[in-house]
């Protein structure tokens, strides 16, 4: 019968998977200047040959020449111009700002107005794919949480700590967009605590030599290697994928085991005193531990990642030990 001649094979296109579907070419990444942004950009650009456009209000020193970078505010006209050309194939939104030392009003405006604008551009200029990197923190650590929260659990993180509201609100904004804008494939990723050579709250916390813990509390935690998060973003960029996905790393361990594995010497503080002590230390600059995240070292906030495994085909590549030790990789 058919000897296979004349049938175009996937070889020329680059991979055996889904050879007939068009590849996404031009990807806009917000927050590209951060360490996570650089890692994601590198993965997409260097390994997978995407064309990358960075949007960040910080400069991006040392970027490869063929990465386009715009040092702009997301709310500005210049940001719109990036999309107006009409050849953007995907937006990867990492630009959620949660600098604990910034003014809350400024953060709010940046995050909410910025995200709203981005979504407007994507709809107006027919960007077919939007990927938001949200966080599993949006569910909030609570004593009555089931051990594993699924994607349809309510986002209650802002209930006890209003500082978390930006994160929750952005997630809500994009979920609404997911259902409203049928022409855009929207993917929301909610990864667990991202660790690695990055400056986020969990990695910074795990790098403290004598980190504060709460006396009599030792919740189970989930960590994910930053490279695995980049991989999850890659899988979300594949065509025909839309929806909300929890992204889970290699497994669950007690917080104390993570600290022990890293050789830290935790300082136990009775929980009624923790909030005043830590907020004082934070204000005086002794500690960089954001008080809003206190409940994350008290209660479980773990998620069920089975949907991402089934629908995105996502599986973490890094083991538990490797993932834990990734926080010390900081050069």
């Amino acid at each position: 019968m058919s000897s296979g001649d004349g049938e175009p094979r996937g070889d020329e296109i680059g991979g055996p998977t889904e050879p007939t579907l068009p590849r996404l070419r031009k990807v806009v990444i917000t927050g590209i200047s951060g360490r996570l942004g650089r890692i994601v950009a590198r993965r997409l650009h260097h390994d997978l040959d995407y064309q990358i456009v960075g949007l960040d209000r910080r400069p991006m020193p040392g970027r490869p020449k063929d990465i386009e970078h715009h040092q702009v505010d997301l709310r500005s006209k210049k940001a719109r111009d990036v999309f107006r050309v009409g050849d953007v194939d995907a937006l990867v939104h990492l630009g959620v700002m949660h600098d604990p030392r910034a003014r809350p009003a400024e953060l709010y405006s940046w995050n909410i107005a910025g995200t709203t604008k981005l979504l407007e551009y994507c709809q107006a200029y027919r960007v077919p794919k939007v990927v938001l990197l949200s966080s599993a923190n949006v569910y909030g650590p609570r004593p009555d949480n089931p051990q594993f929260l699924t994607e349809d659990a309510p986002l209650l993180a802002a209930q006890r700590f209003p500082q978390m509201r930006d994160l929750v609100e952005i997630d809500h904004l994009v979920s609404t967009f997911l259902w409203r804008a049928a022409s855009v494939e929207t993917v929301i990723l909610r990864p667990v605590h991202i660790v690695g050579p990055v400056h986020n709250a969990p990695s910074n916390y795990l790098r403290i030599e004598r980190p504060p813990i709460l006396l009599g509390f030792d919740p189970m935690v989930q960590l994910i290697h930053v490279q695995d998060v980049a991989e999850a973003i890659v899988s979300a960029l594949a065509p025909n994928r839309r929806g909300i996905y929890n992204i889970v790393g290699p497994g669950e361990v007690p917080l104390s085991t993570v600290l022990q594995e890293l050789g830290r010497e935790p300082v136990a503080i009775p929980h009624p005193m923790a909030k005043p002590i830590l907020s004082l230390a934070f204000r005086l600059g002794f500690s960089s531990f954001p008080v809003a995240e206190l409940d994350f070292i008290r209660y479980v906030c773990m998620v069920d990642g089975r949907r991402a495994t089934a629908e995105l085909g996502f599986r973490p590549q890094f083991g538990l030990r490797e993932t834990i030790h990734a926080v010390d990789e900081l050069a």
Partner: protein
Amino acid sequence: MGWLDRLKQLRGPVPHDDIPGRTQALVVRGNEFGFDEFGLSRDSVRTAARLARWLYRNYFRASAFGIEHIPAQGRVLFVSNHSGQLPFDGLVIGAATFLEPPQPRLVRSMVEYFVPSVPFASYLFARWGQITGTPENCRRLLAAEEAVLVFPEGARGISKPFSKRYQLAEFGKGFMRLALEMQTPIVPVAVIGAEEQAPAVNVKPLARLLGTPSFPVVPYPPFLPLLPLPVKYRVYFGEPMTFTGDPDDDEEVLDEKVKQVKNRIQSMIHLGLRERQHVFW
């Protein structure tokens, strides 16, 4: 003869238990650090088993009946009456399934939602395999072929006054929904003795003042049920019951099934009370 010897004589002989061997024989789905997804670790279970064994053998001098009804493997829901102000009935059931059958079973009981906010209990309960009592958690454990213990009377049962002893309070229906949905056999359990470990009256005005469901007071110092009396425990495991049907059926259909389990437990309680010679031995 010293008082310790006299106490030992009163207690009677205690069988030998191989705690390390039994702990090793448990099926634990641990990761490379030895923890399962709920935070259980074999090392913590071994320590807890030593303590539980002492209470089970020496303090409560418990006897277990119907051990052959404890399945050696596979998902199972233990459904028990709940009493005694303090949840020592859960401990005794757990110790019985760990110590008595040829293949030890680790029972995971569904604890109250407030436990994770109590220092130390928050993580110790988890290390010993006890879980926050949400339906999702129960479903997940049954899917992993584990044994789960539920008290359908909940707080209504454990805090009932002495005058209501051995009368079952209203059963919740959640356990039946789970059993139907997960196609899990139910092993009915009756615990005799817990009712007398803290004979309490409920001081309603104080409960209202403090906003707690009840305020139990016992007629001996320290007047609050902090330590159980050394009653003799008797645990009865009944024949497994299997139910089929739609977990989302009408309340009446579910009620009928729940009533079957409740009646079975009630008749096992009556049998246990008839067989018992004395509260303390």
